[in-house]
């Protein structure tokens, strides 16, 4: 947990000031029983009304000074806690962005979302309470004990016994609760997952009329969560009553001991009351502390979950090179590349070698699961090759800074995403400074200009995930988004699957005519999409089953011929 402390950055003064002012306030509060004792012993016994009045004035003054200190403490606590959480949230958000795909896949997006939202919120309220009360309670408790010792040593021994017992109870219950809260959080995540799935799969669930079953499934998880919450609740509910009993037993011992001391003439009645008041003060404080402590394990468990993610290092070391060799012969080179995903039992790619010059086109074709996507994912270093090397413009991809490397690519993914905002915002996603003219040009190339201008042009709003677009429209916008960057290497990962053939053909023609002649890699299921490429690689089970031009492959590769014939045959009639 200590590594999290650095997120107090910029709020250290607040983090220290808050408890400091709390201590101040506590100190003033501790003086009150002394004043009361003075009133009883000096005022009431002698009937000195003026003295009583004066002492009451002192009490009001103590209260006022206490108020000022508390206000300061509350302010600093709020500022410190909120500042810390915002730092932490930003750091976590940044860190997730910096993780490589391998780690992101491992954590899962709903888990990342809970950590960024509800976990950190819980940490924040826990921290705020801690800053406000955590220091105050021990100070009052130990302060009361010290005051007791100054009054009477033997009676104060009762305090010395009570406080450790209370500590054991309070700390013991807390420790018992921490792992239980972690479990609660896990159950909550399941509930979150259910909700999320039902939002994203609303159509399928309704098509299969699975609403009742989904509700049942949710109910099960929801009940599970509720059960865990109650279990923790049962244990933490014991805290208050236990402290209550202990304190009252202590007061009983205290009065008895005080009585003996008074009997021996070593103590006055007023001071016994002061001791009693101190003990009561401890009780009040502990009840507050107990209420606070209920939220501490919860906060700690949440903080740990946040820390867990922050501790995951990115498995990908960033390089330093910012530029490739523009006169390099090849834009893209794979030399004996193999890839095995972490946790997988078999290679997804095996010993692939290929070369692509700037301006050339490469087609990647092969059955589902043959490794087409894996192959292209290696080029911008979304994953690292397990063996062999991938070179871009004459350099090993690992030498580049990720930003520079990916900046050379226009990568249209199979599972693409658009974001909430205008078309213009989405087009500038990968090219911050693109002008409207450039955007328009890219949209035209991607065959998207017609529907975009129909929807209201560059200012047309896109809903989250492109929900207000059809599959084909979204694909064309994603393609335009890649083209706006004027990349040196364009990758289309099966990204025209939702386009009709006519649009697809126009798109290919447009890309062929680009004036900056990028190297183009096209992954597709359709022969017609890749057959005109300068080079085509046929993948089968992660291995290269043929590489060459369409004509060469028709001659040499049986796999290719099979694919071609199946498509052309069905394409030309029954």
């Amino acid at each position, binding site marked *: 947990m200590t590594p999290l402390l650095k997120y107090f950055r910029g709020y250290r003064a607040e983090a220290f000031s808050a408890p400091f002012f709390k201590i101040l306030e506590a100190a003033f509060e501790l003086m009150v029983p002394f004043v009361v004792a003075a009133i009883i012993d000096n005022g009431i016994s002698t009937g000195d009304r003026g003295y009583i009045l004066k002492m009451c004035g002192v009490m009001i003054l103590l209260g006022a000074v206490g108020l000022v200190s508390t206000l300061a403490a509350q302010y600093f606590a709020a500022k410190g806690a909120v500042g810390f959480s915002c730092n932490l949230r930003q750091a976590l958000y940044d860190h997730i962005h910096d993780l490589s795909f391998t780690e992101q896949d491992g954590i899962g997006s709903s888990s990342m979302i809970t950590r960024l939202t509800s976990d950190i919120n819980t940490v924040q309220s826990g921290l705020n309470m801690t800053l406000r009360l955590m220091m105050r309670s021990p100070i009052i408790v130990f302060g009361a004990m010290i005051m007791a010792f100054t009054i009477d040593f033997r009676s104060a021994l009762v305090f010395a016994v009570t406080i450790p017992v209370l500590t054991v109870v309070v700390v013991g219950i807390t420790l018992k609760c921490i792992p239980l809260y972690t479990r609660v959080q896990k159950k909550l995540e399941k509930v979150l997952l259910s909700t999320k799935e039902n939002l994203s*799969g609303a159509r399928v669930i309704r098509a*299969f009329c699975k609403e009742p079953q989904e509700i049942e499934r949710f109910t099960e998880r929801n009940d599970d969560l509720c059960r865990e919450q109650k279990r923790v609740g049962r244990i933490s509910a014991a805290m208050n009553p236990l402290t*209550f009993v202990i304190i009252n037993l202590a007061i009983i011992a205290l009065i008895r001991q005080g*009585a003996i001391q008074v009997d021996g003439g070593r103590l006055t*009645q007023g001071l016994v009351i002061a001791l009693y008041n101190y003990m009561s003060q401890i009780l009040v404080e502990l009840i507050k502390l107990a209420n606070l402590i209920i939220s501490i394990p919860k906060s700690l468990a949440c903080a740990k979950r946040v820390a867990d993610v922050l501790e995951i290092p990115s498995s990908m070391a960033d390089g330093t090179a910012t530029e490739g060799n523009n006169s390099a012969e090849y834009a893209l080179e794979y030399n004996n590349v193999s890839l095995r995903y972490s946790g997988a039992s078999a290679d997804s790619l095996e010993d692939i070698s290929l070369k692509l010059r700037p301006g050339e086109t490469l087609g990647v074709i092969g059955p589902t699961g043959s490794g087409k996507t894996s192959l292209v994912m290696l080029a911008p270093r979304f994953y690292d090759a397990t063996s062999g090397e991938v070179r871009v413009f004459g350099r090993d991809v690992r030498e580049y800074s990720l930003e520079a490397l990916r900046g050379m690519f226009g990568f249209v*993914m199979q599972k693409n995403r658009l974001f909430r905002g205008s078309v213009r915002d989405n087009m500038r996603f*990968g090219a911050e400074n693109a002008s409207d003219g450039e955007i328009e040009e890219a949209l035209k190339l991607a065959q998207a200009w017609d529907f975009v201008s129909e929807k209201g042009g560059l200012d047309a709003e896109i809903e989250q995930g492109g929900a207000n677009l059809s599959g084909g429209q979204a694909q064309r916008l994603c393609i335009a988004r890649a083209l706006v960057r004027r990349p040196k290497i364009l990758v289309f990962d099966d990204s025209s699957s939702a386009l009709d053939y006519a649009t697809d053909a126009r798109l290919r023609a447009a890309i062929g005519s680009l004036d900056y002649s990028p190297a183009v890699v096209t992954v597709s299921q359709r022969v017609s999409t890749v057959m005109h490429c300068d080079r085509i690689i046929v993948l089968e089970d992660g291995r290269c089953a043929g590489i060459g031009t369409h004509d060469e492959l028709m001659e040499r590769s049986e796999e290719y011929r099979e694919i071609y014939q199946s498509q052309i045959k069905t394409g030309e009639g029954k």
Partner: protein
Amino acid sequence: MKNTLKRLASVLGKSGALMICSAALAAASVLLSLYVPILFGGAIDQITDGGVFFAPMAEFLVKAAVIAAATAVLQWVMGIINNRITFDTVRTVRAMAFEKIERLPLKYIDQSASGDLLSRVIADVDQFADGLLMGFSQFFTGIVTIFATLGFMLSISPRVALVAALLTPLSLFVARFVAKNTHSLFEKQSKIRGEQTALIDEMIGGAKVVSAYGYSGRSKDRFGAVNRELETTSRRAIFFSSLVNPTTRFVNSIVYTAVCLIGAMTAIAGGLTVGGLSAILTYATQFTKPFNEISGVVTELQNAVVCAQRIFELIDEPPEPSDSGLPALPEIKGNVSVENVSFCYSEDRPLIRNFNLKVSPGQRIAIVGPTGCGKTTLINLLMRFYNVQSGRITVEGQDISQVTRSSLRQGYGMVLQDTWLRTGTVRDNIVIGKPDATDEEVIEAAKATHAHSFIKRLPQGYDTPVGEDGGSLSAGQKQLLCITRVMLSAPPMLILDEATSNIDTKTELRVQRAFEKLMKGKTSFIVAHRLSTVMSADMILVMRDGNIVEQGTHDSLMEKGGFYAELYNSQFAHG
């Protein structure tokens, strides 16, 4: 706000008996715990400067011990009951929200940011739970403490009690003043949090695109901006709400001092013993404490109410009208007709106009046309995900808006372009439409769609867990599973939305053969761009801009040489 409270009350009403129990326990434990100081006061009075009376003092102390123990037991039971009330309520509210999500019109879900809906069901309910728990554990005890303390004080010294009773409400006024001003801050905080969650949902969900396009930096900046806004708002909300405590505490110290002053004066006059004064001072603190707590609780509750408001907004969203009174569709043979249907998503952009179509059992209808011409919209209407604005769609002569949705939807087998898999095993995902399918049936279906060969190569075969959103499966594999799902449930009508676009052609050929088998005798709607899939159709609908521009068989349309012929000829157009 009033409405929200009413809703809250109706939800809480379910735990009525427990709440009464809790209140009774609160009363009992408070009364007992308040009796303890009187006993201690009595004990202290046995200690005089002239000497100590040990025997009566011991009697007082033993009594105190017994009562303290009893109080603790009552408190513990009360704590457990309160937990139950709170967590049960949370469970109920979550269940209500979830059930509502299952019944909302798709239009609502399509239009809402899913992150915002999630944050209502998860974060808001949590916040609301915390507020509620705090409310329960302190509200009752608070009220009872106030009255009981007042009673005890009156019994010791009416004059002192009066002082305490008159001064203390001051703290309530202070608290109310602060609370009033913090409500809007919490509301704002909730809103910004919702925005932030939506951003997180979007950027983390699309993390791969973000890093591929070098958007990380700007994504971080955008987050930073919302985060800073949240920081300012949260800081103010928390600070202002935390003012309640110290200000009321200051009022309390004034009360305490006043009680001390009047008490001491009364004691001098002989109207009060020192033990009595000690007891009354304890009461004075205990009397004011609940006022503080209640004001703290009020802030917390207020925050909870804001969250509750957001949840109830979701829960109160009108669901799709109930169809329980409607008849189910009779046995579906596959007669579908679309009569004069018009539809649009938003008023200003009409999409489908005066659409007519008549389909006989077993016919295969292919819908083709450029992207965005309204093909997916047709599915939304056929399945009644959306309702037509005018005209009607009938199945077996029955208007589909006059039968149950489930009987209509069960008649269709649907494979969408966006594959959707849920967390669970491969098998779980296949049997979704037929939960009682045997292993043999599952394997048979998977073999028919050629999914079997890849499934059996997965680490645990059909029991391989599928992660969130399909996890590590490839797009084609996911699609195959979705097809297998429909194959297994074998419905009388089919809707296929570009379903085969992610499968390699070799596999697709086989799948198509399987579909041929499946489609035999079944009415099928196929939204596809593959003319090869389309050519065997009984009727082709060529759509453009929401309208059917041509209608006929492949041969007749080719002969006509219109838009369809243009589409067809461009299939192998060279780039």
